[in-house]
């Protein structure tokens, strides 16, 4: 129902950000159904090489399911990636959650609260997908709290003004969608299915951010300045969300072969830039890059690369908010311990009572 609160700011629906990408999500969903309908031969023969069977399934664009044999490295890669994604949803609630109490209208408050709640839902959904690989949510949460697994570095930047909520929706959620749409076709079935659902909701999130910025950019001079300032601060960190340049990316080649990943970091980054340029024009906001220009030969925009040294620093824990984000999550977990213990104790007492009644 909260989706009904979104209205296009004077543009035809097709011009809205994410409209083309949403089509790809739907195509991936149709593909997934078709793959399910195409009868996979009923598992490997008793004496068949399991690795060969796995490769055959992946090559045939069929899905690997939890019951299937898979290479240990494939399982580990997926656990790492899905867990990192789930952690990102949970930590990512903080920067936007920072503005719920101060949202400037009741309608904006409701939309933002629903959005942050969606992210918690995505986190749960992704933890459940990771659990199909033989690890528990509690273990994964502990790995996050111990600093042994990462979350997206973008959430280590602060939300200083209301316009940052808009910039996160437009740029950060926009970059996330560009990253995640290809994952709807991931070879691992539970992850692909989770991503289809997540991407559909993310496209709403991107729209709400775009709409916030559109309203600000067409508002008072102070609001316009607030919107531009937010775009100035979030542009390069958003470009960095696609990871290091292809030459430096450690996980890419194998993930491409396994069809976990479908496009290179640089390809996705380019796609994101090309998408944003047009949208920025409609918004009436400037992308803070003097090197941004159309390259007729490449049929794409030339642009300035983000500062990858800064990205490495943030990944190492030295972004503006790394310490605060982790301290916040650890505090919430620790403060809730007595509540979780009480719930477990209560459930155990109830089970005891039921047993006694049965006996």
């Amino acid at each position, binding site marked *: 129902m909260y989706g009904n609160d979104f209205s296009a700011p004077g543009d035809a629906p097709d011009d809205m950000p994410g409209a083309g990408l949403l089509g790809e999500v739907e195509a991936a969903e149709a593909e997934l159904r078709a793959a399910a309908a195409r009868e996979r031969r009923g598992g490997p023969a008793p004496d068949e090489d399991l690795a060969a069977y796995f490769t055959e399934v992946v090559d045939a664009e069929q899905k690997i399911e939890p019951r299937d044999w898979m290479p240990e490295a494939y399982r580990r890669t997926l656990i790492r990636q899905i867990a990192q994604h789930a952690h990102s949803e949970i930590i990512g609630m903080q920067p936007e959650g920072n503005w719920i109490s101060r949202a400037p*209208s009741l309608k904006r408050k*409701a939309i933002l609260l629903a959005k942050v*709640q969606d992210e918690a839902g995505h986190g749960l959904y992704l933890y459940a997908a990771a659990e199909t690989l033989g690890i528990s949510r509690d273990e994964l949460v502990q790995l996050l709290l111990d600093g042994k697994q990462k979350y997206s570095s973008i959430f280590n930047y602060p939300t200083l003004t209301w316009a940052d909520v808009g910039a996160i929706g437009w740029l950060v959620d926009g970059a996330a969608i560009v990253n995640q749409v290809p994952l709807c076709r991931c070879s691992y079935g539970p992850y692909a299915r989770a991503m289809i659902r997540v991407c559909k909701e993310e496209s709403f999130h991107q729209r709400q951010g775009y709409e916030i910025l559109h*309203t600000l950019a067409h508002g*008072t001079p102070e609001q316009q300045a607030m919107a531009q300032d937010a775009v100035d601060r979030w542009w390069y960190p958003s470009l960095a969300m696609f990871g290091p340049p292809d030459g430096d990316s450690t996980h890419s080649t194998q993930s491409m072969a396994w069809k976990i990943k479908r496009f290179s970091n640089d390809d996705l980054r380019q796609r994101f830039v090309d998408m944003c340029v047009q949208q920025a024009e409609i918004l009436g906001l400037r992308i803070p890059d003097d090197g941004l220009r159309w390259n007729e030969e490449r049929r794409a925009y030339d642009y300035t690369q983000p500062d990858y040294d800064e990205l490495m620093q943030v990944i190492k824990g030295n972004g503006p908010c790394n310490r605060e984000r982790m301290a916040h999550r650890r*505090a919430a977990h620790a403060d*809730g311990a007595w*509540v979780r213990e009480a719930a477990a104790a209560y459930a155990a007492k109830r089970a005891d009572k039921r047993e006694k009644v049965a006996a």
Partner: protein
Amino acid sequence: MNGPFAFALGLGDDALIAAQRLAEWTTRAPEMEEDIALANIALDQLGAARLLLSYAGELEAAGRDEDALAYLRDDREFLNALLVELPNGDFAVTMAKLFFLAAYQLPLYTALASCPDERLAAIGAKARKESAYHLDHGALWVRRLGDGTEESHRRMQDAVDHVWPYTHELFAADPAAPVDPAGLRAAFDETVGPVLAEATLTRPERGWAPTGGRKGVHTEHLSYLLAEMQVLHRAHPGAQW
């Protein structure tokens, strides 16, 4: 201030301030599922607040919409009951507030649903379904915490003792109102008594009964809550968001 405007405003303010407090839990709840549940309840309260404040603005007929009423009044003009503005405290205090508020709002909205004012009746019909869920959720946690561990029992009893005095104000008589709150007390007692007993909690004796919210005389906490809620809106007079 009395009459239909003040009545709608009071209920709208209850819902708005409850939503603001519940939303403070976002990213801080003891479990991820609970983060989602509390946000859900906050959204329900916020939705009801928007309907009630919009209607109050129409009744007043002075051109104030939901945002003018939410963002441009000072604490002395807010008419919510004191219970909803109390700080969240620990999870037990929040659950005591949630449980008692829902045990009041459910019979209230149910009665409103069949009152002669069509707008209030429609709001009541929608909100009572949500209140039923809030009540279930609050009651479940009161039982879990009350009959959980030694620590949770102690915290839940402390929370009940702390919040209980503020429940009396909810039922102050207002015979001219579309629904007289005094008539809801019996339903509240019938709901609350058995849950507290099952949770092995002691229901406090009637003693101190602070009041004043419906007249705009609040605790010290409300002004801080409003300062935070209103700061951005007030910094840009007349701006659209």
